[in-house]
């Protein structure tokens, strides 16, 4: 640790450059993560709205409704089933019309069909899950129509898939770019000390003894860079990003903008450590040769 301290004091500029590189790289990844997390949150909210509605031709009796409810709720894909009577449907419609509810004056309360609203489990809230349920519903002859908006489902599935792929590709690319920059910055610090490394090997320093301070140094730089990135992301989030993202996502009906969770924050610092350490390992391979 004494040698690490001395090394850091001797090359403050290069050391700061390495820390700065880690910090900037992780800040970019942090911003991207916040955007992805919030868009995913919106996607989750949307997915909660995915449901199947089965309309009845004629009003069924209470006993039969209860029978169907029990039968449907026994299905693996279905979380709960709610019966909506003609009256309930009318009341909902009236409420939704709000100030224009007077349009319904003179219209009977039984013009809307009774229905079963079926909510699927989270894992089945996709095209495949919905279609499987619809297939089974269509076998009940009393049901006139089953509504499940297949096109919207397809688009939703595609959007979630795209988001996942974009997250992996862009995040991976950013991490790789960060690693490349960090490794090269550390290589510069090693280049500045190549004379020292050469002499260490000539006077009998073992590779581990020579490499250890540089590895600790890389790890420390990574941790400091990760912490700085966290502080930076938090500051920019509080000052700009939170309001900016809310302004964009408000139309989607989001509850609020999320910051990184504590495990994600630790993950960011850990990522800094791994970046610094890997950067040092990659660079040392070339410089320490016995």
């Amino acid at each position: 640790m004494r040698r690490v301290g001395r090394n850091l004091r001797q090359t403050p500029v290069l050391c700061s450059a390495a820390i700065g590189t880690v910090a900037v790289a992780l800040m970019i990844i942090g911003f991207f993560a916040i955007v992805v997390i919030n868009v995913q949150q919106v996607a989750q909210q949307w997915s909660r709205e995915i449901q199947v509605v089965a309309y009845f031709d004629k009003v069924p009796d209470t006993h039969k409704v209860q029978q169907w409810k029990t039968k449907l709720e026994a299905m693996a894909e279905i979380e709960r089933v709610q019966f909506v009577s003609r009256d309930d449907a009318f009341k909902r419609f009236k409420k939704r019309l709000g100030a224009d509810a007077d349009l319904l004056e003179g219209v009977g309360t039984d013009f809307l069909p009774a229905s079963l609203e079926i909510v699927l489990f989270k894992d089945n809230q996709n095209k495949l899950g919905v279609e499987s349920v619809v297939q089974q519903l269509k076998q009940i002859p009393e049901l006139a129509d089953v509504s499940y908006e297949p096109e919207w489902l397809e688009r939703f599935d595609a959007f979630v898939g795209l988001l996942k792929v974009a997250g992996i590709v862009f995040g991976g690319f950013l991490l790789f770019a960060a690693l490349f920059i960090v490794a090269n910055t550390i290589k510069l610090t090693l280049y500045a000390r190549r004379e020292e490394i050469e002499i260490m090997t000539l006077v009998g320093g073992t590779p581990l003894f020579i490499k250890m301070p540089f590895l600790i140094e890389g790890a420390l730089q990574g941790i400091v860079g990760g912490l700085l990135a966290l502080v930076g992301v938090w500051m920019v989030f509080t000052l700009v990003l939170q309001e900016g993202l809310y302004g964009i996502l408000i139309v989607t009906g989001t509850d609020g903008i999320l910051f990184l969770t504590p495990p994600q924050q630790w993950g960011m610092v850990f990522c800094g450590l791994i970046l610094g350490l890997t950067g040092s390992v990659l660079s040392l391979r070339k410089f320490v040769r016995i």
Partner: protein
Amino acid sequence: MIQLYNVCMSYQKEATALQEFSLKVPKGDFLYLTGPSGAGKSTLLKLLYGAVKPTRGQILINGMNITRMRSWRIPMLRRKLGIVFQDFKLISTRTLFENVAFPLEMQGKKRYEISNKVYQALKHVGLQGKLNRFPLQLSGGEQQRAAIARALVTDPLILLADEPTGNLDDEVTCEIMELFKGANARGTTVLLATHNREIIRRYPRRIVALDKGRLVDDHTP
């Protein structure tokens, strides 16, 4: 102490640095490796401290066959050697004390032991008053004396010197040669590569002459 048997060394297919080179150096010997530039003097020294491996042949140092030595054991070999270069190879950002302490730090010695040994080594070369100076604040002769102190601080079995007086004037050269003589008198085997005939004349010792990688002469005047 040192035995070389039919050692061949070539950096590329065409350029052969050493050819069928054999030599025996008993413990406590002092010998000059001499010859024109490109004769193979530096290559021979590099082979002895394990910086390069021979293409063919065997090299034994203190009973260890270093041609078969795994790379992780090379540092252990170097701890038994002291090496002095023409360009001193001192770390410019470290004080004289820190430079000389370096080999002892590598060996994991205790701090009080390091302080004691470094002070003695610097006193021996007459630099005890300049412990906290940096190499660039010293003259060439002083830097080479510091490099010798670093090479001798571990009490090595063998001292290898590659043109140690190449950059120094006559007066300083004599001071440096006295230090090598002293180390040899205390039992260290010394191999000194030089093409300075004046040194060889003033300090006559066994001479091993090389030319184009071959041993051309081996005699003691």
